[in-house]
């Protein structure tokens, strides 16, 4: 994974609460054994009517929202299952960040591990962006080092992110590689624990 520092992109608003992972990527698409190619199935049941006909009402399908890279959603985004296919689908579709007032825990982790930035802003800030996005698509800039989201018309907000994950994302580090550097410590732990438990 290459590092992410700052980027600018088109934002699309999806004003729904509790969007679950079954919606983000329905289960019939979980049978693939690769990580790629899930983008065309993203929000499948909302994006398409029966027989694969495009649902023109759905936010992502509007012409002005094509090419969006930042998704704005409402509270508890990504609740439900642990399927990492959800961030894979978002990533494959082109999203680099999701902004919401809150995220479900496992989904939040899964985003970080795949280089999608999950951005928590206050309800007011997200409310403002959702309202703006309903009227027109617009551009947002995200700066991971400064932990800021800004538009070109004076909106500016700060978001929290753990220093650990900030460093991981900015540098594009491989977590397993880092852990394997602690291999001796893991082995020592195993030995001590297995003696203590007599197993």
């Amino acid at each position: 994974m290459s590092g992410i520092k700052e980027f600018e992109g088109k934002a699309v608003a999806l004003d729904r609460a509790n969007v679950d992972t079954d919606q983000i990527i329905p289960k019939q698409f979980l049978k693939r054994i690769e990580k790629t190619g899930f983008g065309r199935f993203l929000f499948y049941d909302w994006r398409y009517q029966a027989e694969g006909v495009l649902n023109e009402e759905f936010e992502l399908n509007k012409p002005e929202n094509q090419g969006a890279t930042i998704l704005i959603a409402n509270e508890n985004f990504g609740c439900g299952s642990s399927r990492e296919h959800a961030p894979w689908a978002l990533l494959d579709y082109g999203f680099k960040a999701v902004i919401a007032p809150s995220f479900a825990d496992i989904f939040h982790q899964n985003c970080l591990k795949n280089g999608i930035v999950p951005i928590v802003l206050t309800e007011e800030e997200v409310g403002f962006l959702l309202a703006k996005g309903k009227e027109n698509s617009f551009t947002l800039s995200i700066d991971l080092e400064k932990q800021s989201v800004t538009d070109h018309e004076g909106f500016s907000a700060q978001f929290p992110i753990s220093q650990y994950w900030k460093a991981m994302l900015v540098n594009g580090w491989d977590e397993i590689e880092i852990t394997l550097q602690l291999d001796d410590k893991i082995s020592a732990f195993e030995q001590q624990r297995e003696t203590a438990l007599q197993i």
Partner: protein
Amino acid sequence: MGKSIVDKIWAEHVVHREEGKPDLLYIDLHLVHEVTSPQAFSGLRMKNRKVRRPDKTFATMDHNVPTINRTQIDDQVALNQMTTLEKNCLEFGVELAGIDSPEQGIVHVIGPELGLTQPGKTIVCGDSHTSTHGAFGALAFGIGTSEVEHVLATQTLWQTKPKTLKLEINGELAKGVTAKDVILYVLATYGIRFGTGYVIEYCGDVIKNLSMEERMTICNMSIEGGARAGLVSPDETTFEYLRGRKNVPTGEQFDQVVQQWKAIASDSDAEYDKVIVVDGSDIAPMVSWGTNPSMTAKVDASIPRQNDYQTELEKDSLVRALSYMGLSEGQRIEDIKIQHVFIGSCTNSRIEDIRAAAEVVKGKQVHPQVRALVVPGSQQVKKIAEAEGLDKIFVDAGFEWRDAGCSMCLSMNADVVPNGEHCASTSNRNFEGRQGAGARTHLVSPQMAAAAALNGHFVDIRKVTVGAV
């Protein structure tokens, strides 16, 4: 001040701690299934890495296995996923309960059944309902595929210690009220986010009096309240369940290990970040009417109206849910007609669930407009049920009796609810499309599902005479 079980398990498993980082936590048991593991194994292969502890890793296939005609699998993509798991397990030396194994079943049913799940362990699986194993006093939580790869390679995970929530359920449950109703009631009352960022510890008289299988039903749905894990401090009920199971020490060693398990239970003066107290006598048989598990009502109540909610977001969610469900505001729960019944899933597919449903069904007939399925959680559960003649009760009543798997809980295999039809389901999620595109799911207990199967609509199990033939 005393310590809670979560504090104790955590402290025992920290391998490495460093300022500004999550803790590196050791994992005692890693369960693997066919849907969330293929990309993790390819990740290992690409970097030339091994599975660090195959002896602490156990695999099965459950999500997309057929529950009928298993020798001939038509879905080529699903088949590919299953054979990929077989190949991966062989290559990396991981034990697998494959489709032909007498031990095959839903990963969260077979872990406890095989005695792999034990108090004090850290347990992970690429599946959010891993919280089920918490019933044994284990710290068990679901992880994504990147984390699956990380655990395979290192037997550890970077984790930030979650906050603790004590959920105390006091008093007694009324007749006809089950563990499933307890957790649905909690979700209906506190919503689907109250547990986010917490590990829930269930306690109180109601929990103390539940069997292990009932405790599993409750811990299973912790994730539906946003909590990655839910657990119960181990006690005599836990030890008795584990005694004599495969993978559990025997004789003197068993007594020793019980002493260790006892020590892991929460101290009576343990401190928690949040406490919720529920009165068990307030709980009734519950039925979900909407598109998330908190959209649930007592069986003798009605679907809420917009006026019952304060915020626009809630009103909007109600309208959206009812339009998907084809139901209306104020409609009585008992008037909801159903066309399908599914008794199964890692929430309610164990032998006690199947016995309870059989009691209701015995000597009666499934409503002519209803198609009903019983899918045992494991091949072992199936075998026990058949030895007790329960399969015959179901088949005589007009149910289909299947092989073990996730089946209609998420309908990745051929067991699907058609568009627009209603299903009384003992599973855990009623999300849009979960049981099939346009399918309308109602979450209930096995007893309530069985009674609905006989009547073609929901009925209050408290008013039904059970077991009378």
